[in-house]
């Protein structure tokens, strides 16, 4: 079988380079994205990131902002959490390795996609970063907890830290200023983990700390592993923080990769990665307020009531039930990070959300590979997304891939980059203490 795989890979790559399918840009953000017809040639169109070292390159941020790496050589950083004293917790890990090879395609696609990711082994740990003197340099770094299982979602509620491993929601007690977990994690509840095709478990806590919301991705692109393995998948769970009891909060969300609680009103928001292999401009990934009890379409429908008949048995009644998400972020951009901004980020970026986009594989011209800002007005997305951090790709080389984003209330955006294993910090230049600017001029 391996001979066959090698042969197919060589042929596939050659034909993929030749390209197939038109890749024209369509307007695909906001409430009413253009939805072109479905396209799928004999080969799924693939353009995989070619990783390269940053060298002298740096992410590009808007005028009036500065970007600095605050931690490097991490072990696959995914999500970050800013603690009340300004310390930053970073979840490091790589999950999903148990998904079985069920078709020759799985061998080949797995091999090709792996080229676009970091070869480093996931840390399965939480790293704490501290800037004790407030100069913007995180000089203190320590492992807060280890031997976790592909930790991803992070949330704090009062004096408890919650971590969503790929197979369980766990918690640690937390005292302000603590640098090391005081004991092993306590399991709040097991999470659906069989196969774990989409293994990331996103996490957010309600303002009162009573409930946790866990994003659980589907076990396939579009049901190709059979619908039996999709039990309790592609949904957001609401978990009681005390008892661990869970219930389905919203369903039909193919891969809800990041959750965030809207400040003030406590509305839950999610970014969701939509299905592949329907062409370069289908289906738009999206940002949406997660409504209790709502069904968002997967696998039977996309963007409201558009049917996807690749799933059998097909259920027309589920297509009718599907509701439209709020705001399209573009097809294949792969949003994996979501954080609400605040006034400390300046007037232009003060009201809205930051979205970290890991970047595409299933289209010829890459999209994503950046952090965008979606402005909000009256608590709802309003207007076009604004590029906030770019420069992750240049001349066909990919230096980094953004994942989780977090906003420091003191005025900084934290971005986890799982390709270069770096955590970036973007601050309004005016916010920086004068000492730091002087030190930089002297030092560099």
């Amino acid at each position: 079988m391996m001979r066959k795989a090698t042969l197919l890979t060589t042929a596939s790559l050659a034909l993929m380079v030749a390209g197939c399918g038109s890749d024209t840009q369509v307007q695909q953000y906001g409430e009413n994205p253009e939805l072109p017809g479905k396209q799928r040639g004999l080969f799924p169109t693939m353009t995989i990131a070619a990783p390269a070292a940053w060298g002298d390159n740096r992410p590009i941020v808007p005028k009036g902002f500065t970007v600095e790496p605050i931690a490097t050589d991490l072990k696959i950083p995914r999500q970050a959490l800013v603690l009340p004293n300004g310390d930053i917790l970073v979840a490091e890990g790589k999950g999903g390795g148990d998904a079985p090879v069920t078709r020759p395609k799985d061998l080949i696609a797995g091999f090709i996609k792996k080229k676009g990711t970091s070869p480093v082994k996931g840390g399965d740990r939480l790293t704490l970063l501290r800037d004790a003197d407030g100069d913007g340099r995180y000089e203190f770094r320590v492992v807060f907890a280890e031997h976790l299982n592909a930790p991803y979602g992070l949330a704090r509620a009062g004096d408890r830290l919650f971590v969503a491993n790929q197979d369980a929601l766990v918690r640690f007690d937390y005292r302000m200023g603590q640098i090391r977990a005081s004991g092993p994690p306590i399991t709040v509840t097991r999470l659906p983990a069989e196969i774990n095709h989409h293994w990331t478990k996103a996490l957010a806590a309600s303002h009162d700390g009573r409930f946790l919301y866990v994003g659980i991705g589907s076990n396939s692109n579009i049901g190709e592993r059979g619908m039996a393995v999709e039990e309790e998948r592609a949904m957001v769970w609401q978990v009681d923080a005390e008892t661990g009891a869970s219930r389905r909060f919203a369903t039909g969300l193919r891969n809800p990769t990041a959750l965030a609680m809207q400040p003030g009103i406590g509305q839950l928001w999610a970014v969701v990665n939509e299905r592949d292999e329907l062409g370069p401009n289908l289906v738009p990934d999206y940002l949406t307020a997660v409504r209790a009890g709502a069904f968002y379409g997967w696998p039977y429908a996309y963007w409201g009531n558009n049917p996807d008949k690749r799933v059998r048995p097909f259920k027309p009644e589920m297509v009718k039930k599907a509701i439209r998400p709020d705001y399209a972020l573009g097809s294949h951009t792969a949003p994996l990070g979501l954080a609400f901004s605040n006034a400390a980020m300046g007037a232009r970026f003060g009201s809205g959300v930051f979205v970290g986009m890991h970047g595409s594989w299933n289209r010829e011209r890459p999209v994503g590979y950046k952090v965008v800002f979606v402005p909000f007005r009256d608590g709802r997305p309003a207007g076009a997304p604004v590029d906030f951090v770019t420069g992750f790709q240049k001349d066909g080389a990919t230096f980094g891939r953004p994942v989780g984003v977090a906003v420091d209330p003191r005025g900084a955006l934290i971005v986890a980059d799982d390709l270069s294993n770096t955590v970036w910090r973007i601050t309004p230049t005016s916010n920086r203490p004068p000492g730091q600017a002087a030190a930089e001029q002297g030092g560099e």
Partner: protein
Amino acid sequence: MVNNAALRRTIHPVHAVLLAGSLPLFLGALLSDLAYSSSYQVQWANFASWLLAGGLVLEGPALLWSLVRLLRHEVRRDRRWLLFVVFLAATFILGFVDSLVHAKDAWAMMPEAIFLSVIVFLLGCAATWLGFSRFGEEEV
């Protein structure tokens, strides 16, 4: 008469195994496709993918072998050998296309997968029939 006997050639036993061995695999792929289309159980589609891949693993070397022999004098001017190579190549190429169709997720492979699997099996039968005939008699 000695000359005549030397020209009445059959294919090498190993070549024959490669050729005929692909047939049950292609047939299995077709039957699995039919099972998937009537049951919606994706495991049948997975079986079909692997069976097809297996058929191609045997058919590939068989095709190569027949091409190499085409360059040699004893069969070069035999039209039936040429026909054998053409059918074998068609089986392999359409089998490969069928594999790509089977790589589409879930029901996206249907109904093309069934049509292609039927064609590939029939072409494979024809190629095997031709391959098992005797060659070189026309030159006598």
